[in-house]
């Protein structure tokens, strides 16, 4: 149903940033890899969504990248967290845990 799709998309949008930053905290990755990892956790995101997000995060200096030449194909951007990004991430993760527990409690109370 359209309505829940909308809401779900909104929710996903909200946490996407958190997920991406978390993945990158495990080590550098290039966009396709990030998508693969998200898929494994059943978070489906199309690349068209990912790229702008990555670029924004890079613009706000939470991420940065390096180029890697490839034998088969165009050069790739490998993203990794900046110092600011790491701090930002831990902050965000804390807010997440707080929000999750609050929301859970709210939901549990409903019938």
């Amino acid at each position: 149903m359209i309505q829940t799709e909308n809401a779900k998309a909104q929710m996903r949008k909200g946490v996407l940033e958190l997920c991406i930053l978390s993945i990158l905290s495990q080590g550098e990755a290039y966009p396709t890899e990030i998508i693969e990892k998200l898929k494994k956790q059943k978070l489906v995101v199309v690349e068209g969504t990912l790229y702008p997000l990555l670029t924004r995060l890079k613009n706000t200096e939470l991420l940065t990248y390096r180029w890697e030449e490839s034998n088969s194909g165009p050069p790739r951007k490998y993203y990794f967290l900046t110092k600011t990004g790491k701090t930002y991430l831990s902050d965000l993760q804390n807010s997440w845990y707080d929000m999750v527990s609050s929301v859970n409690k709210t939901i549990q109370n409903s019938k």
Partner: protein
Amino acid sequence: MNKTVTINISGIIFHIEEDAYQVLNNYLIAIKRYFNKNESGAEIMSDIESRIAEMLQSKTNAMKQVILMSDVDFVMQSMGKPEEFADEQSDANSSNSFDEQMGYESQHQKKRMYRDADNKVLGGVCSGIGHYFGFDPVWLRIALALLLFFAGTGFVIYIIFWIAIPEAKTTAEKLAMKGEKADINNISKAVVEEVEQLKKRMEKYGNEFKDMAHKNKHVPRNVAEKIVDFISDVIMNIGKVLLKIVGVFLIIIGLVFFLGLFSSVFGLSFMLDSVNGKDWIDLVLLEGKDLYLGIIGIAIFVGTPVIIMIYGGIKIIFKVNYTNRWVNLGAGIFWLFGFTLLLYVGVRTGNDFNKGAKVRENISINSYDTLYIKMAETPIDLIEVEDAIDYDEHENAYSKHHTESDYMIGKNANGRYLLGHSHLDVIKSQSDVVELVVVKEAKGSDRKMASERAKNIEYKILVSDSLIVCDQLFRVNHADKFRVQSVKVILKVPVGKIVYLDKTLENMLDDVDNTTNTYDGDMINRRWLMTEKGLKCIDCKGLEIDSSQAETEDSLKEENLNITVNGINLKAKNSQVKLDSNGVSIKSKDTKRTIDGKSIHIDTEKKKQVH
């Protein structure tokens, strides 16, 4: 076998099938548009293209060198369609986000009606209205043009619209006219389009100039050449203006012709005292379908070139370059059709002049010694007879002079009829009685028709004792048409009788033979005696005699008849008879007889006898 297109994405060459290319291209364009709003749009695009290139590379190998539609589908699935992009662009654009998630962009802001000056034929009225209501302006143009025929309604409506509806000048207005949101995106799109158009036009001009320069072989270098160029420019511009004037003239002339044709053929007469075309056509042509066919034929034959002229004039003025060969072909065929009609009617009508017939009518007349013949003025009002009067410019007056071969159209309560002049001839009678014959002649498609028509000619001659009064004109009724009807009056005079030709017969005489070779005009007002050799003038004192006729002179001398109040003097070759107050005197070669009151004297050579 399929066509491939060669493209490069992110610097990598790909061969891609044509239809797959179309889809991929549209996809990339859609994404580009989507990210246009984003400040980092370019960077994002480059990342995306790079990823796409990578994906496509994995799809090709030595066995499969070309990107297919299925590959493009795969890319689109993987990358996602723009509608599927969770809107990363944050709250600055939040007013759009909801809409964009739904995948639609609200395009319909308030639409306003403007005149579209970029897509105009005349004033862009129909284009503008078409935009507003969403239909092709051609229909509206057709509708208005048709309305023109109803007292020019279309014209009035159009002018009102032209005045009331403003022209879309700024880009924002133009977008509002078409109903597109006038935001930066669309406006920049519109501007880009306009720039493209402008570029194309400049290119075209540039090319034209290059061609021209090519032809001229050199580019103007020095001042003199520049001046020449300038002058030729001015002349060209004047030429263009003149061309437009020519266009206007063509239209005006065409319209005038058209109106003239229209009125003359369909009976609306501009000039009140002249016979219009319809009357003549009516009388000459056959009735019924031939008449209408004939009129239609003329209308088409003359009207088509006129309309083409008007059309050409309009094209010149409004710089319409569109030459539809079907229009020209159609017009040509139509014109030929008119020509054929005319030909057909012409042949049929001509047929009706095939055979001629004469009808003779003998009018009884007593054989008086002297006959008087004059012409009666046919009683027709000036008003009734149209075109009978020639306006003599030199004398600045209406003169009744018309040649004897004129036909005229008269009109009375019953309708119109044809009038013609009758002719008179005086010849020697074969018998010793006077005969008066009226010969009526007409043409027809066969002898019977011709004869009918001849009989139907109305002509009056009155005879009272020795006076013959002939009508000046004969009348042909409408039904008989003009078929070269003629009326000839022949007066047959036996030898020894005298005829007096009244001066009213001036135009009626038709080369009457006479012994002195006198012209008809000089024959009037005189008495003529019919002799063995023909008419001889009795009254002709002071008449100039044709000196080429020596015999005539002799005969005048030989045969001399002199009748005066005093008496009669008859001179012959060798004799003379005198009748006067003295008595009778008869002189011959040998004898002289004189009779007077008292006695009769007879003198011969031999002796004188008195009784």
